[in-house]
């Protein structure tokens, strides 16, 4: 039996605006996604902002009810059996929030240990070992408001693991962290994987998913786009070459002309500090650089790099197609 099963899951948010003329608005956050996660697997849910990743996690952790479709977590229905799921899963979300700032890390953990029914005899030892796991030993008596983002995030993970959950949901755990903090969190997650925990990780950092996840599902605009191992997803673009062109202010009309160049499969733009990077995917062997430079005539072009495709390129291709 899969640890998590999601079938045709849909969620629509409804709201009303206006006082006299009430207008009803609907936002379709999930439009029927399906996937499953095996026990002991580290599964990644990838997608751009607004894709429906957090909504999926909230439904699976019993915080939201689905509008349609079904889900099973360890065999239990999140909509109808929330109590059974809550005692078996941990939930960690990214960002600064979710902790009592004016209390120490130790007080936070003690409180959540009581809420999550950690036996009194095990509480002290469990908290000590988790502080050790997340590298906060020695800092536990300091108020959380004095912690860096990375420390808070690691404390979040410790909180999520207090009751030794069978499944851990990690919702963008490295968002907003500096590279060192993000690496520490990834190391902690990798460590948990070796302990056999089932983990559902959402992220939009491709290298994170590539480094950590055994399988990945890509969703965009609430729809399922693709799934597979990182290698399988990368294989989708292995027949491609990626050309990166450093440019400075490319007009939309120029971009449209570039898309029409023979051999171009897709074009994405990335804004850098002082420049813009055009990431062009083309079929292997297609010599399109001269044609691209010709279309960019009149636009400043810096470095031009040709490289092998990465998981991020596969993701851009998948999301673009989705």
């Amino acid at each position: 039996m899969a640890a998590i099963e999601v079938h045709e899951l849909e969620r629509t948010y409804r709201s009303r605006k206006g006082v006299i003329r009430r207008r009803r608005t609907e936002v379709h956050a999930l439009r029927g996604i399906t996937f499953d996660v095996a026990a002991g697997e580290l599964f990644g849910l990838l997608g751009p902002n607004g894709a429906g990743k957090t909504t999926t996690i909230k439904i699976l952790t019993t915080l939201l009810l689905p509008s349609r479709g079904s889900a099973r977590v360890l065999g239990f229905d999140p909509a109808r059996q929330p109590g059974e799921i809550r005692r078996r899963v941990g939930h960690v979300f990214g960002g600064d929030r979710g902790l009592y700032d004016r209390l120490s890390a130790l007080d936070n953990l003690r409180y959540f240990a009581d809420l999550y029914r950690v036996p009194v005899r095990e509480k002290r030892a469990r908290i000590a070992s988790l502080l050790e796991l997340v590298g906060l030993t020695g800092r536990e008596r300091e108020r959380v408001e004095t912690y860096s983002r990375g420390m808070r995030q690691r404390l979040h993970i410790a909180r999520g693991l207090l009751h030794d959950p069978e499944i851990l949901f990690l919702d963008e755990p490295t968002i907003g962290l500096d590279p060192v903090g993000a690496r520490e969190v990834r190391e902690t997650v990798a460590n948990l994987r070796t302990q056999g925990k089932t983990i559902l990780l959402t992220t939009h950092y491709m290298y994170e998913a590539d480094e950590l996840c055994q399988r990945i599902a890509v969703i965009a605009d609430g729809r399922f786009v693709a799934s597979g191992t990182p290698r399988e997803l990368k294989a989708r673009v292995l027949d491609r070459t990626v050309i990166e062109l450093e440019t400075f202010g490319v007009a939309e009309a120029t971009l449209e002309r570039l898309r029409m160049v023979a051999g171009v499969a897709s074009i994405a733009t990335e804004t850098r500090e002082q420049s813009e990077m055009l990431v062009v995917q083309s079929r292997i062997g297609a010599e399109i650089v001269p044609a691209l430079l010709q279309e960019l005539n009149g636009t400043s072009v810096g470095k031009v790099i040709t490289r092998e495709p990465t998981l991020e390129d596969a993701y851009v291709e998948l999301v673009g197609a989705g």
Partner: protein
Amino acid sequence: MIRAFASGMWIHVVQFSRNPFDLTGVVIWPILYASIAYYLLDSKDNPRLLLAASLGASVMLMWSLVVIGSSNALENQRWLGTLELLVAAPVPFAAVIAPITVASGFVGGYALVATLAWGTLLFDVPLVIVHPLAFALAVPCCVLAIGMLGLVMASTFVLYRAAFSLGIALQYPVWIATGVLVPLSVLPTFVGRIGWFLGPYWGYRAIREAALGPSPWAAIGMCLVVSAAYFAIGTICLRAFVHVARSRGTLKLT
């Protein structure tokens, strides 16, 4: 569940005590309320009335601290991003929220004592208690009755994001219906009848009758009865409103 309740109370009292703004209010408000009780009635020659007014002012303050403190605490949970974590905890949600309202009531219990102390120190309000033992019991019963009414109110705070505004709006109606702001004898009869259903009414009667007589035991008993009823209603409402919040997706602030 008892551990979650005790731990929750401790955490929320500590959290409250580390906010200088809240602490300043708790120090200043009892002086203000003691002053109001003294100057409003101008009853220097009637020590019993003066003590009754001080007790009324204390209950007013206790209710304010519970209703504002609870709504503020719940709004803070949203801002801190902890409300979702509390809902996702495996213990019943009432055992998570009740400590917040009872912790506010606990602070209110301190405020009651402080108001009486300031009244005695500043305005010579005679602190002669007819039934000291019953008074010692009446105060925690009053805290419980008011805290549990706060629990019922808190269930709506889970559903609506403007909890703090709602908390402020609920102060005056309860003050009036309880008879601590204006004597019920000068109000239409139905206002007093509404008071029968309110914890602060029985809490005020319990501590007033313990202090001034006659027997407070009936009122103390009613405090326990309404507390139990509020707990049952609060638990049902919390369960229902959390279901609605899960359906609407309103547990998070943004």
